C-alpha cells in the first residue's frame, strides 16, 4: 500500500500524483527481472515519447529494459535517456496507453508514439487515500475510483448527488432536492443506531468538516438548517479531477476512528506543465414545472362535492366555520353573508339562500386552479465555469472560477453561487516543493419562510406552523381556492384567523441565506534522502452562514399575531398574549406593528495540520518495502447564534416597534429572544502503516492508528482509541501458472480485516451539567438552574466495528472488467438509548451497549459490448446489497416512535425499520377505520404513546437493501449517447399523511377519496375511510383513528423504483472544424435529468419514492433539461 517513493529524475518534473504509480510499475518491472539476462555492450539511447492522437509529449512514461531492473521515466518534454545494450528490448508503458516493446538494435535514438488503450482508458489506476497515492494493483482495500468524466452530470450542482448509482456500495437518496441540502449518503449502509452515519469527505488531503451537524434523521425535516447540510455544496464540480470512495476497513485504515462510515476522497485539478490551457464549461438548464397529471389530486368539481358532503354531515356549519382559525370558500361565503350588507341599496354580497349560496360556490367549483402553474415555472439555470491551467517545470498553476444562477423553480426560491479556486505548485529546489491552494465560494439563496417542524405525539404527526412550501402547498391546497378573484386581484382566504394568500405570503415571508466559505491550504514536501520524504499539510477553513428570516407586515404570519377580532378569536388565537397579571382579561395583541426579523448565524472555523514521513526501499528489485508514519491535528469551532427581532417595520425604513409585552410573553414561556451556542471538536491522531510487496505479486499491509478526541467529554480514559488493520492482496495473473490463460488481463484477490470507529452521539464520559432557567410561570419566581444533562458514564467509549472484506478485481478478454466485494461487519459498542432503573437519576441513558451486524455485496461490471468501425457501446452495471440487523438493543420505543415515515430502531430489525398499526377494515356503521390496537383488540382507539408495540406490523426497512445503476455509453463517430438508470429495492415507504379526523374547506384530497366509505356496506369494497360526521367525531372523543390511519398498514407501499436518472447526447466538434477557430476541443451536449420514473409502486400516485415531503424548505429533485458547451483552447 505504501509505495510512495520518488526517483530524483522524476520528482518535480511531472505531476506528483503519478509518482506512486511509476514507482509501482518500477517495482513490477523489477519483480519481473529474472537473473541471468545479461547484455554485452551498452549504449546511451535517447528518445522522445508522444501521444499518438495529438502528438503532444508524454511526461512520466516508464521506459524500462525488458528483463532487467533498469529503467527511467520521460521528462516534461517526453524525452528520456538510458543505457541499454543492442540486444535489449525497451518497454514503454504509461497509464491509459497500450505498452510497446521495441528492440534497440543499433539505434541510439528511439522516438515512440503511444496509443491510447481504449478499454483501460477509463480506469484510474492510482488510488488516492488522502494520505498516499497507491498503485491500484498494490492496493489491498476495497475502493471505487471514479474519474470526473465518469461522475460528472451536466446541470447537477452537488457532487454528492452525482454519485447515485455510480459506485457499488454507495447509496444516495435525494431526500430533498433543494440547493445546499445534502442527500442521504451511505457507504455500505448504516453503521450506527443513533449516530449520523455520514461518510467522511476529504478534499485534497484535508477532511472537509460540516458547517453544521445535521443528523441523518434531520435531513428529512425540511428545516432551514438542512440548507447548509451538504458539506460539498460549495465545491465547483468542474474542479474535480477524481473521486476515490474508500469502503472497507483496509481502505480507510489511515482514518482510524473516523472511518466507520467510509471515506470519499476528492482530488481537485492541478496545473499541467506546458502552454496554458483554458477550459470553459457552460450549462444552461431548465427545471420543468410539475403537473397535476402525475399526482392524484381531486379536481375542483370533485373537491367541491366532497365539501358538500361535509356540509351535509354538519362539518362545515355556519357558526363553526366562521369562527374557526382556518377557512376557505365556505368561510368566505359565511363571512360575506354575515358582513356584506350594503345599507345603501339593501343588498348582500351573498344572499343566504340555497340559490345564492350555490351561485357563490359555483365559481369555485369550476376554478380547477393549477397551483403548480401559479407557484412553479420552468426555471432558467445557468452555470459558467472557467479554468486555466499551465506551468513550467518549476511551477504549475491552476485557476478556476464559476458562476451559478438558478432563478427559481418556484416563485419563492432562487440561488446564486460563485466559486474560485487557485492552486500553485512550486519546486523551490531539488528537495523542496511547496503548494498553495485557496478555494472560496459564496452563496446567496432565497427560500420560502419557514419555522422548525414539531412532533405532535398526542394526535400523531408532524406540524409546522405557517408552512408555505410551494410544493406542499400545491399538493395540500384545495384546487377550489383561487389565487386571484374575479377582478384579477389577489384573493385572500383565512389561516390562523388572518387573511392568507400564498402569493402575498411568498412575497412577504422569506428566508435569505448567505454563505461565505474560504479555505487556504499550504503544502510542503521535503526529500530528506533518496528513500525518505517528509510532507506537511496545513489548512484553515472559515465558513460563515447567515440565515435571515423576514416576515413583513401584511404577511399572514405577522397578521396572525394581530388577529383579535372577537372573543372567540381571542380565546383561540395562540399568538396572542395571556397576561398572568390580569388573570381575567382576554389575551391581547403584542405585535401591534411590523413583523419579524429573525436571524441565525452559523460560523465554522476549522484548522488542520498533518506531518508525515514516507519511507520506501526496494531490495534487489524483489522486496519492496514502504512505510508511512505521521501525526495529525484537527480543530473545529462551531458557533450558532440566533436573534429574533419583534416588530421590525419593513415598510417604515426598518425601524423596530417592539411591544415590551412580547418579550415578557417569551420570557414567561421560558424562551429567550437571542442566544448563542458553541461547540468544539478537537482531534489528535498518530498513525503508522507498513507495506511489503514481493515481486509485486503478494502484498501485505498493516496499519495502526491512535485517535484522541474531546467529543466524549472530560475523562481522559475514554478519550483515546487505537484502531488497526491487516490486509493483503495477491495478483494472481502474475503467477507463472497463469501463463496459459492469456485471456485473463488481470486478476487480483484481496482480503482485509480491521477495526474502525467513530465517536458516537454521547459526550458524557464525565458528568454533563447544563445551565438554564427554571420553567416557572412568573418572572418573580424564576432563577438560574443547573440541570444534570447526563450522569458520568465511566464506560463511555467510541462506536466500533470489525470489518472483514474479500474482493476480486479482474479483467477478461481485454473487455470485461469485474470488481466484486463481499463484506461482513460486526458493529459493537454502539450508542443506544436504554431505559435505566432511574435510581442514578437518569431515566434514559445513552450507553455503548448496542450491537448490530451487517453484510453485503458490492459488484460492478463493465462491458464493452460492441466496438466496430465508428460504433462503440459500453455498458456498466453497479449493484450493491446491504443488510443490517440490530442484534442487541434494549430500548423501549412507543408506538409513535416506530410508525413515522423515517422509521424506528428495534432489536431484530434493520437499523431503521418501518412499522405499522395493523389496519382491520372499516367500521360498518360509521366508516371509521379499525386497527389492532396496543392490547391486541380490534378498535379505532390506538394509544400511540403506548409501550406495547408487539402488535405492530413490521413492514420493512426504511433504507433500500439493494441499490445501483446501469449506465450505457454509445459512441458513433463524434457523438456520444449516455443513458443512465438508477434503481433501488428492498425498502418500504409510508404514503403522505392525507387523512384527518376533521377536514377544513382548505384541504385538498387525493383521488382515493372518490372511493371513500359513504354508506353501510361500503366497508366490504373499500378501505378508504369515511369523512366522519359531527356525531361520529363526538363519539370518538379524544381518539384519533384518522391520524392513526396514516400510520397504518393501509398506507405503506413498496419503495422499489427504477429511474432514468440521466440521458445525454454529446457531440465533439471535429478538429478539422476547430483548426481555424483556435479551439483545441469543443463539444456540445444535451442532458435530461430525472426525466422518467420507469418503475415504482402504483400506489404512490406520483409521490416521489425518494423524497420526504416534509414542507419547510424541502423540494423534490426536479426534472431537468440541460444544454452544455465545453470549450478548451
Amino acid at each position, binding site marked *: 500500500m505504501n509505495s510512495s517513493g520518488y526517483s530524483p529524475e522524476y520528482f518535480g518534473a511531472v505531476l506528483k500524483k503519478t509518482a506512486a504509480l511509476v514507482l509501482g510499475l518500477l517495482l513490477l518491472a523489477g519483480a519481473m527481472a529474472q537473473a541471468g539476462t545479461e547484455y554485452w555492450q551498452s549504449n546511451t539511447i535517447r528518445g522522445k515519447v508522444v501521444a499518438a492522437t495529438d502528438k503532444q509529449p508524454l511526461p512520466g512514461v516508464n521506459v524500462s529494459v525488458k528483463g532487467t531492473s533498469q529503467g527511467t521515466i520521460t521528462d516534461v518534454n517526453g524525452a528520456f535517456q538510458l543505457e541499454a545494450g543492442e540486444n535489449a528490448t525497451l518497454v514503454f508503458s504509461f497509464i491509459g496507453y497500450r505498452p510497446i516493446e521495441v528492440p534497440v538494435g543499433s539505434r541510439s535514438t528511439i522516438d515512440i508514439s503511444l496509443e491510447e488503450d481504449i478499454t483501460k482508458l477509463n480506469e484510474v489506476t492510482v488510488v488516492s487515500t488522502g494520505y498516499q497515492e497507491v498503485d491500484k494493483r498494490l492496493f489491498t482495500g476495497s475502493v471505487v475510483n471514479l474519474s470526473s468524466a465518469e461522475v460528472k452530470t451536466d446541470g447537477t450542482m452537488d457532487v454528492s448527488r452525482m454519485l447515485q448509482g455510480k459506485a457499488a456500495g454507495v447509496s444516495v437518496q435525494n431526500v430533498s432536492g433543494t440547493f445546499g441540502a445534502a442527500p442521504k449518503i451511505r457507504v455500505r449502509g448504516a453503521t450506527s443506531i443513533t449516530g449520523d452515519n455520514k461518510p467522511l469527505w476529504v478534499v485534497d488531503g484535508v477532511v472537509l468538516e460540516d458547517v453544521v451537524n445535521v443528523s441523518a434523521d434531520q435531513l428529512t425535516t425540511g428545516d432551514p438548517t438542512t440548507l447548509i447540510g451538504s458539506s460539498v455544496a460549495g465545491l465547483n464540480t468542474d474542479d474535480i479531477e477524481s473521486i476515490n470512495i474508500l469502503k472497507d476497513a483496509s481502505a480507510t485504515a489511515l482514518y482510524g476512528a473516523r472511518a466507520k462510515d467510509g471515506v470519499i476522497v476528492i482530488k481537485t485539478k492541478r496545473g499541467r506543465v506546458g502552454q496554458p490551457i483554458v477550459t470553459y464549461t457552460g450549462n444552461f438548464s431548465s427545471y420543468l414545472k410539475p403537473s397535476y397529471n402525475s399526482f392524484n389530486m381531486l379536481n375542483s368539481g370533485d373537491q367541491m362535492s366532497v365539501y358538500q358532503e361535509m356540509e351535509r354531515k354538519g362539518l362545515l356549519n355556519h357558526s363553526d366555520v366562521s369562527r374557526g382559525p382556518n377557512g376557505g370558500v365556505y368561510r368566505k361565503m359565511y363571512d360575506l353573508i354575515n358582513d356584506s350588507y350594503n345599507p345603501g341599496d339593501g343588498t348582500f354580497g351573498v344572499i343566504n339562500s340555497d340559490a345564492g349560496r350555490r351561485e357563490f360556490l359555483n365559481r369555485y367549483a369550476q376554478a380547477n386552479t393549477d397551483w403548480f402553474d401559479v407557484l412553479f415555472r420552468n426555471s432558467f439555470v445557468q452555470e459558467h465555469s472557467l479554468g486555466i491551467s499551465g506551468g513550467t517545470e518549476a511551477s504549475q498553476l491552476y485557476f478556476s472560477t464559476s458562476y451559478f444562477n438558478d432563478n427559481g423553480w418556484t416563485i419563492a426560491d432562487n440561488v446564486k453561487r460563485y466559486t474560485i479556486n487557485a492552486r500553485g505548485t512550486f519546486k523551490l529546489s531539488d528537495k523542496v516543493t511547496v503548494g498553495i491552494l485557496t478555494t472560496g465560494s459564496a452563496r446567496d439563496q432565497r427560500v420560502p419562510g419557514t419555522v422548525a417542524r414539531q412532533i405532535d405525539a398526542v394526535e400523531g404527526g408532524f406540524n409546522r406552523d405557517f408552512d408555505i412550501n410551494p410544493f406542499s402547498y400545491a399538493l395540500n391546497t384545495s384546487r377550489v381556492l383561487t389565487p386571484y378573484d374575479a377582478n384579477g386581484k389577489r384573493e385572500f382566504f383565512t389561516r390562523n384567523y388572518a387573511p392568507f394568500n400564498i402569493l402575498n405570503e411568498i412575497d412577504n415571508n422569506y428566508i435569505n441565506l448567505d454563505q461565505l466559505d474560504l479555505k487556504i491550504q499550504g503544502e510542503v514536501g521535503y526529500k530528506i534522502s533518496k528513500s525518505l520524504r517528509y510532507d506537511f499539510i496545513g489548512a484553515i477553513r472559515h465558513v460563515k452562514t447567515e440565515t435571515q428570516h423576514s416576515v413583513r407586515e401584511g404577511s399572514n404570519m405577522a397578521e396572525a399575531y394581530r388577529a383579535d377580532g372577537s372573543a372567540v378569536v381571542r380565546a383561540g388565537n395562540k399568538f396572542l398574549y395571556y397576561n398572568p397579571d390580569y388573570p381575567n382579561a382576554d389575551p391581547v395583541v403584542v405585535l401591534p406593528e411590523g413583523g419579524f426579523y429573525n436571524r441565525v448565524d452559523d460560523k465554522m472555523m476549522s484548522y488542520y495540520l498533518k506531518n508525515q514521513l514516507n519511507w520506501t526501499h526496494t531490495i534487489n528489485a524483489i522486496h519492496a518495502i514502504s512505510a508511512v508514519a505521521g501525526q495529525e491535528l484537527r480543530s473545529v469551532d462551531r458557533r450558532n447564534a440566533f436573534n429574533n427581532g419583534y416588530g421590525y417595520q419593513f415598510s417604515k425604513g426598518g425601524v423596530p416597534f417592539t411591544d415590551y409585552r412580547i418579550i415578557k410573553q417569551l420570557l414567561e414561556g421560558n424562551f429567550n429572544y437571542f442566544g448563542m451556542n458553541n461547540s468544539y471538536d478537537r482531534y489528535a491522531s498518530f498513525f503508522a502503516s507498513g507495506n511489503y510487496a514481493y515481486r509485486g505479486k503478494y502484498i501485505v499491509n498493516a496499519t495502526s492508528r491512535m485517535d484522541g478526541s474531546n467529543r466524549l467529554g472530560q475523562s481522559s480514559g475514554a478519550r483515546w482509541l487505537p484502531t488497526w488493520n491487516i490486509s493483503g492482496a495477491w495478483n494472481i495473473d502474475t503467477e507463472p501458472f497463469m501463463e496459459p490463460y492469456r485471456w485473463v488481463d488481470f486478476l487480483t484477490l484481496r482480503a482485509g480485516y480491521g477495526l474502525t470507529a467513530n465517536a458516537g452521539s454521547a459526550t458524557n464520559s464525565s458528568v454533563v451539567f447544563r445551565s438554564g432557567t427554571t420553567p416557572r410561570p412568573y418572572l418573580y419566581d424564576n432563577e438560574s438552574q443547573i440541570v444534570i444533562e447526563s450522569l458520568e458514564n465511566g464506560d463511555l467509549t467510541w462506536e466500533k466495528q470489525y470489518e472483514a472484506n474479500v474482493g476480486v478485481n479482474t479483467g477478461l478478454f481485454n473487455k470485461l472488467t469485474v470488481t466484486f466485494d463481499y463484506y461482513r461487519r460486526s458493529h459493537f459498542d454502539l450508542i443506544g438509548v436504554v431505559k435505566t432503573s432511574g435510581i*442514578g437519576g437518569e431515566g434514559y441513558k445513552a450507553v455503548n451497549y448496542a450491537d448490530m451486524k451487517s453484510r453485503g455485496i458490492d459488484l460492478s461490471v463493465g462491458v464493452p459490448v460492441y466496438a466496430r468501425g465508428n460504433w462503440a457501446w459500453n455498458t456498466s452495471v453497479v449493484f450493491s446489497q446491504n443488510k443490517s440487523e440490530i442484534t442487541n438493543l434494549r430500548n423501549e420505543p412507543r408506538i409513535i416512535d416506530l410508525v413515522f415515515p423515517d422509521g424506528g430502531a428495534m432489536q431484530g430489525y434493520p437499523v431503521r425499520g418501518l412499522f405499522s398499526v395493523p389496519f382491520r377494515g372499516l367500521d360498518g356503521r360509521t366508516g371509521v377505520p379499525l386497527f389492532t390496537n396496543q392490547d391486541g383488540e380490534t378498535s379505532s382507539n390506538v394509544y400511540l404513546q403506548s409501550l406495547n408495540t408487539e402488535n405492530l406490523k413490521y413492514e420493512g426497512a426504511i433504507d433500500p437493501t439493494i441499490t445501483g445503476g446501469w449506465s450505457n455509453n454509445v459512441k458513433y463517430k463524434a457523438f456520444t449517447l449516455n443513458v443512465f438508470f438508477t434503481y433501488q429495492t428492498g425498502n418500504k415507504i409510508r404514503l403522505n399523511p392525507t387523512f384527518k379526523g376533521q377536514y377544513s374547506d382548505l384541504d385538498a384530497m387525493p383521488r382515493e377519496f372518490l372511493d371513500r366509505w359513504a354508506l353501510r356496506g361500503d366497508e366490504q369494497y373499500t378501505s378508504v375511510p369515511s369523512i366522519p360526521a359531527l356525531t361520529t367525531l363526538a363519539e370518538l372523543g379524544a381518539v384519533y383513528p384518522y391520524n392513526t390511519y396514516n400510520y397504518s398498514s393501509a398506507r405503506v407501499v413498496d419503495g422499489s423504483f427504477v429511474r432514468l436518472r440521466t440521458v445525454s447526447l454529446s457531440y465533439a466538434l471535429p478538429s478539422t472544424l476547430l483548426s481555424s477557430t483556435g479551439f483545441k476541443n469543443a463539444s456540445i451536449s444535451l442532458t435530461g435529468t430525472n426525466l422518467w420514473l420507469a418503475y415504482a409502486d402504483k400506489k404512490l400516485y406520483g409521490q416521489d419514492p425518494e423524497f420526504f415531503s416534509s414542507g419547510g424548505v424541502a423540494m423534490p429533485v426536479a426534472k431537468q433539461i440541460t444544454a452544455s458547451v465545453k470549450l478548451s483552447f
Partner: protein
Amino acid sequence: MTLAIAGCDDFLSKEPDNRASLDAPEKISELLVTAYPEAGYSLFCEVMSDNVEDNPSGIQDPLNADPYFWREGTTTSQDSPENYWNGCYTAIASANHALEYIEKSGTPELFTAQRGEALVARAYSHFMLVTLFAPTYTGTGSDNVSPGVPYVTEPEKVAFKNYDRGTVKSVYEQIEKDLVEGLPLIDDKLYVTNGSATGVPKYHFTTAAAHAFASRFYLFKKDYDKVLEHSNAVFTSDVTNYLRPWNTTYASYSANDLAIAYTNSATPSNLLLCETLSSWARSFYVYRYATGANKFLTMMQRNPTWAEYQYEYSARYTNAGVYFLNKYREHFVQTGVNSNTGYPYTIVPLFTAEEVLFNRAEARIMKGNYTEALNDMNIWISTRVVNYNGMDGVWMDKLAETYPDKKNSRDVALAGLLDMKRVEFLHEGMRWFDILRHNIEVNHNVIGGKAEVLKGNDLRRVLQIPREAVATAGLAPNPR
C-alpha cells in the same frame, strides 16, 4: 508516542460544547435548584384514593385508569408512578452531586447552607419514595423486614449499577439522619436573589419548609412530640395569617384568580412550591375517574361542622359531571416560539400551612390532647365555612354525633380531622397518604360492573417499583 499522547491531553481537554461546570459557590446553589422532584404524584395518588369515582363520559387514559384499579402502569409518561420515581431520584442525584462537590472542595465551611438544603432535599425525595413504593412505616418489627427503597448517597458514575433496597427501617433512619443534620444548617438568606425574583425562596427548603417536612415525617414515624415541635416551629405568628382565606378573599375569586392564588409564591400558606413536569393542571377535571357529582356531594356532606364549606360555592363542573376546584394553572413551555407542542408544567404546593396545622392536630389527638386538637381544627374551620360563626366550630359531642360508629374520643376526633383534611386537599393526592397511614379501605365503583375494593392489608397499596429497576439494578419487586 506515550509522550505525544500526554502532550495532546491539554488540547483534547476542551469541553465539546456550552456545558456548565461547577466552578463557583453559586453554581452549587443553582445545581440545588434541581434537587426537588420535577414530577407529579398528585394524579396517581388522587386516583388511587377514595376521592374519585367512575364518570363514564370522562376522557379515558391509561394514566388515569391504571391507578383507579391499582394496576401496574402500562405507561411511563409524565404523571405515572415510574415518572415520579425517576423524578425523585433525579432530584437526589442533584443533591448528591452538590454534596460531593462540597466535600471535595476542601472548604465545606463555605457551603454550610447549601449542604443543609442538599441533605433535607435528599431526605425529602427518599421519604416520598419509601412512602409510595414500600410498605408504610408501622413502628413495629415489620419495618425491619419490609424492603425499603435504595437510599442513594453518592453520584452514579457507571452506566449500570446495582442497588439494594434496604428496609423501611433503615431508610427511615437515613432520612432522619439527613434531616436532623441538614435542618439546622439551612439559611433562608441563601435563597434571596439580587433581582426582582422575590418568590424564589418558596421553591426551596427554607427553615419553615424544612420544619413542615419534619412535621410530616415524624407523623409517619408516629413520633408525636417531634411533630408538635416542628409544627410549632413553622408558625412564627398567628396561624390564621398562614391559612388560605377561602371564605373571604377566595370566595370572590374567578376560576383563573383561584388557580393563580393557589399556587402563588406570595400566598403565605404555600411553604414549598415545586414546578413539576405534569399535565395534571389540564387533566384533573377531564378524566373518567375523577371526583364526580356524587362523590363531591358526599365529601361535602361528611362535614362535622354542620355548616357549608366555601368549596361548594367555588366548585365548577364539566359536562362529563366532574366537579372541581380550579387549584392549578398550567404553565405550557413550548418547544419553539410559534409551536403548538411543548411541555406542560404544573406548579404544586408540596407543603402548606394547612397540612402542618392538621399534622399538629393529629399529633395532639394521638397524645390525647383533644382540646388543643379541636382548637387547631376550629382555626381551620373559621377560614373555610361560609358565613362562619362560632357555632360552626367542632366540639367533642358534635363530632361524636357526626360519627356515631366511632367508639372512642380518639377515633371520633380523628374521623373529623381526616374528613376535613380530605376536602382541604382535594385533587392534591394528599388523601392517599392518610389512607396509607390509617389503613383506610377504598371502594371504587365501576359503572356497569363490579366495584373494586382495596382492603387495609391489600398488597396493591404499595406501588410496584419500575420494571427496569428490577431488571437492571437488581431490586426485588414488591409482592403481589
